[in-house]
């Protein structure tokens, strides 16, 4: 448990860079004073039928922070992400042991309703997936399902607020009743984020949200993520280490279902404790 425990984020922003084969990209976001833990993962073991995908993962995910899961394909980072909002429940034969504690409750317990977990923990997928409905109906879907509003005016306001938070309002305010599928890829992903925000989740999970987008759209989304962490806890799975370095404050590195190392993004990218981490970061594999 020790090697994988989170290191403290008490260092000042700039570190003197050592002689490393690859200079880590500068992390511009400031590391705040230690943020409280939002989710604590304890002894997570995940199985797809007989095949084990995660081995004894222990991790703290702090609030108001962007935590990045990185690692080679198939290392289990997406599986772990999906554990957090009980999405693995929908896969027949999938099975997760261990405790996932949020606000004192173990949300992985079979006694807890996964539907309610998902109203507190939202998810954005790799390929933008707006529903084949109008933009307004897309955003309103969550609030309507969970009856989160009083009157139509309330709903209108909620839709507008969500779209503003997702930095999409100005672009779509004149065509709220047009289909969500008519937007560009980057806009669709922001629509999905707005849809997720409409139910006011405490945590947003993002599974490679930019891999289907062009660089400009990606930059928009990353800026948005940085704004969102002010009010939300964000966990992002990413293939791109540059993205992890740009956008996150904490990073966890996985390999073959095990958590190898986690710590502040700064530290992981400039001075990883384990050779394995360093090998991945410098592109020796994956």
């Amino acid at each position, binding site marked *: 448990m020790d090697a994988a425990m989170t290191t403290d984020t008490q260092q000042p922003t700039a570190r003197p860079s050592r002689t490393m084969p690859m200079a880590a990209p500068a992390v511009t976001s400031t590391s705040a004073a230690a943020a409280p833990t939002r989710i604590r993962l304890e002894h997570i073991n995940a199985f797809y039928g007989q095949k084990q995908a995660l081995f004894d993962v222990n991790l703290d995910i702090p*609030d108001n922070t962007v935590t990045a899961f990185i690692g080679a394909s198939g290392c289990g980072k997406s599986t772990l992400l999906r554990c957090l909002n009980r999405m693995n429940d929908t896969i027949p034969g999938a099975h997760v042991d261990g405790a996932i504690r949020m606000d004192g409750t173990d949300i992985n317990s079979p006694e807890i309703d996964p539907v309610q977990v998902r109203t507190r923990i939202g998810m954005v997928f790799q390929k933008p997936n707006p529903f084949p409905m109008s933009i307004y109906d897309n955003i309103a879907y969550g609030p309507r399902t969970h009856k989160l509003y009083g009157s139509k005016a309330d709903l209108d306001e909620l839709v507008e607020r969500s779209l503003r938070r997702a930095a999409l309002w100005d672009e779509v305010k004149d065509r709220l009743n047009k289909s969500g599928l008519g937007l560009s890829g980057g806009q669709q992903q922001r629509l999905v984020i707005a849809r997720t925000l409409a139910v006011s989740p405490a945590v947003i999970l993002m599974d490679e949200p930019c891999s289907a987008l062009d660089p400009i759209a990606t930059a928009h989304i990353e800026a948005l993520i940085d704004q969102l962490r002010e009010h939300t806890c964000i966990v992002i799975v990413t293939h791109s280490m540059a993205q992890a370095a740009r956008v996150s404050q904490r990073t966890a590195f996985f390999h073959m279902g095990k958590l190898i190392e986690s710590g502040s993004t700064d530290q992981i990218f400039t001075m990883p404790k384990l050779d394995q981490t360093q090998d991945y970061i410098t592109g020796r594999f994956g």
Partner: protein
Amino acid sequence: MNTPATPAIGARKIHPADTTFRLSLHAAGAIVVIVLLSILAIMFMGGKLAFDTFGLGFIWGTEWNPVTQIYGALPAITGTLVTAILALCIAWPIGFGIAFFLTETCPEKLRTPLGVAIELLAAVPSIVYGMWGFFVLAPFMSEYVQPWLTNTFLWIPPIGDSFFWFTAPPIGVGMLTAALILAVMILPFIAATTRDVLLSTPQLLKDGAYAMGATRWEALTGVVIPAVRGSLFGAVFLGLGRALGETMAVVFVIGNAIRMPDSLMAPSATIASVVANNFPEAEPGTLDLAVLLALGFILFVVSFGVLAVARLLLRQERMS
């Protein structure tokens, strides 16, 4: 600044909406199965009197005499099988040709209209085919085709005089005419099903063949057909299943003579035509009705077998 604290996530409740949802859907599925089993059971019970009276020999009995109340199913069974298989032999090559044309050699612009035309043909109600057969084909057969067939083949002994060839008086109705109508009926069906099968072959297979310099025909016979052979047979069996049970197209042109046929041109009967023709006179509770229901049971069992085989062949390759 912390994110707003979340209210405690509650315990799992069983939601009545979901339960009703699942239950009602399962019930719908159950109804489907119950319907099939009921059909089999009720048909059998209805025809039980016939099986009790004649035993299993009912199936092989060749005499059908309402007056003496001696019934046998073999004439109807023979008529059904002969017309269906003959129809299949005629329809399958043409249907296959159409399917190949649609998928390979047809110019792009014609593809949709032709496909639509085939599907419209398949949608024409069977009674229309029956009328066409009765008013158009049967007279045509009796005036031109059948005399020609008789004259042409009669002088080739022993074909001319032997069983199942063209030796009956040319009255236009009979197994041959019925087979032709059936062929026309199942033609679009076979064309459409075969086209779907051919369309589902991966382009990669065909590209590989063309890359080696094969002609279209060679690519088809050498690569595509072997790859989808099972599904093609499935399509054929599906067409056979259709032809076996077809009623209205056949009932007008088969002549309704319930005896063992001695010629393709002789009036004959199929199970479906016997049932349809004799139903009005059959009183409930009598042997007359029971034999009809027994015939229906036999038809259902045969169709079931053919359709089950067809489905196995088609789904097997669809899934892989």
